């Protein structure tokens, strides 16, 4: 087992060595916790952070971004809206948009467009499909 103190000092090293560009897909649960951990670890002393949040619900993401911005005032947090990521065309469309925004942001920052970390935690663990009322538990 890697103990939590080692995990934290390793994460601190990660954010204090170089600026990071991070994509998080799905933030309702664990993706959101990872993002908060990233913003908190970076805090005010990290080398810079640009984050793209791919998710469905704008209202939830806005609240999350406010929290992250408090933890990490110098970070840039961008919301990329997606609907049904089980559909691969939707994934492609989302990626095209994300790449476009990152190229623009990188240019504005005099930086290279890139992604250093991609975290994916999108899933559907609820037993009923929210729209169709049928079992979606097995559709995850």
């Amino acid at each position, binding site marked *: 087992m890697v103990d939590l103190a080692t995990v934290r000092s390793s994460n601190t090293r990660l954010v204090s060595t170089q600026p990071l560009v991070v994509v998080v897909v799905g933030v309702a649960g664990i993706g959101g916790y990872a993002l908060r951990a990233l913003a908190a670890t970076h805090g005010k002393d990290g080398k810079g952070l640009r984050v793209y949040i791919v998710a469905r619900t704008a209202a939830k993401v806005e609240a999350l971004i406010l929290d992250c911005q408090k933890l990490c005032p110098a970070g840039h947090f961008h919301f990329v809206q997606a609907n049904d990521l089980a559909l691969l065309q939707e994934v492609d469309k989302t990626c095209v948009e994300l790449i476009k925004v990152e190229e623009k942001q990188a240019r504005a920052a005099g930086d290279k467009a890139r992604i250093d970390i*991609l975290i994916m935690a999108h899933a559907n663990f609820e037993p009923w499909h929210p729209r169709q009322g049928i079992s979606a538990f097995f559709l995850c």
Partner: protein
Amino acid sequence: MSLLYYSRMRFTLSLLPLLLASSLPAHVISVYGPGRDATLIADDLSLRDPKNYGFMSSGSHAAYLTTFFMEHLAAQHPGHLALTHYYPGLVFTDAIFSPRLPAWFRGFFYYARPLLLYFLPMALTAEECGDRVLFNASSRFPCRLSDGEAMPSKTDEGVDVAASSDGIDGGGAYRVNWNGEVVNTGKQYPKLREEGWLEKVVRHTMEAFEEIKAGRVFTG
């Protein structure tokens, strides 16, 4: 299945140009369950037959497919790409209190949560979970190096460099447990590798992607 495997690998491939542009080894982290690989229904990888489809079998196939496809990507991009399939443990996300879940389930976890957090090591708070997800981007899980380069055996924090799922130290494709340890591949793997399952999984996945991209329905 789509959200747990196909969608995630599609994200990885579609964002690959940007991942390869990173000056670090870029890290791809998929949060689900690498240790769920049990049954592999060889003639129905997509689990099309409703008789084959279930919570267990879909998790099992997602774990197998992720393991092999990540190994493929790590080998294709030495020096650039490290990939992790991570099992987060029992994490109390808000999802367990969703009003769409049965009341008995929510009730059970409402009362059991403090006990589980205290007695069960794999029950994590949201905060610890977040930190541990991020740790998958550490140098404990490096990208594969090109031939001839020497892999350090420890990270700057003195933690051992992990073994890739294909048995190479620092091989670039990792199956990781909630506590940062490797989830070993089972006894069935040597035989599966001999039978060419890595290539079969890559072919299956790329065919699915090509069919769907062309606007057709994948039937494989």
